[in-house]
């Protein structure tokens, strides 16, 4: 069963506006939540993360919000730029045995329209 879910397969936003990507999870034992950006034919690149003990983390145009009671996180991109057009994966990290494992959502394809 999918432990990390992204229910919106795609999103289109005008350049300069806010993009909001959403993610839900089921496991309350996750330690960290991460967002990755992926261009076609390339590996995912890390964007921003948040610890489970925080509710907000900001890095430039990117802000991640965590609502633990709702088991929901979101990524805000302000202002959106055409170069932000990519697939965004939400991920969660948990301790497993002696290491950690990452669980990924199915991705949201963001298109920023110039």
């Amino acid at each position: 069963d999918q432990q990390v879910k992204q229910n919106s397969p795609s999103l289109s936003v005008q350049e300069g506006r806010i993009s909001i990507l959403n993610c839900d999870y089921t496991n309350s034992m996750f330690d960290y939540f991460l967002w990755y950006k992926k261009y076609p034919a390339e590996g995912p690149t890390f964007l921003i993360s948040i610890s489970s003990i925080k509710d907000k983390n900001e890095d430039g145009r990117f802000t991640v919000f965590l609502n633990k009671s709702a088991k929901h996180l979101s990524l805000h991109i302000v202002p959106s730029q055409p170069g932000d057009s990519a697939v965004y994966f939400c991920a969660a990290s948990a301790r497993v045995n002696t290491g950690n494992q990452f669980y990924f959502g199915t991705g949201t394809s963001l298109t920023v329209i110039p």
Partner: protein
Amino acid sequence: DVKVTQSSRYLVKRTGEKVFLECVQDMDHENMFWYRQDPGLGLRLIYFSYDVKMKEKGDIPEGYSVSREKKERFSLILESASTNQTSMYLCASSSTSGRYMGTEAFFGQGTRLTVV
């Protein structure tokens, strides 16, 4: 900079062939992972490894095996390639200790495998 390198960007193999996908990381990471990415299905974990010679099945291990003889290298093996294994394969590594534990997985550039 952390570097995770996959041996091939594009690969075309025939049905029934044994296929080896190689991955090398240079950050002395303990954890290494193999995922496949398919449209609408996201990244699905095939196998992972916490240490040398150690391996654990992920969500979709059928038809695959792995080898980790050295800490920096994690190989994915398709025992007998089939057309439903046509996919993008992604290798990743992460630290299992210290302040960065669990905070980030570093990915290779991916291998687009086509089985014909």
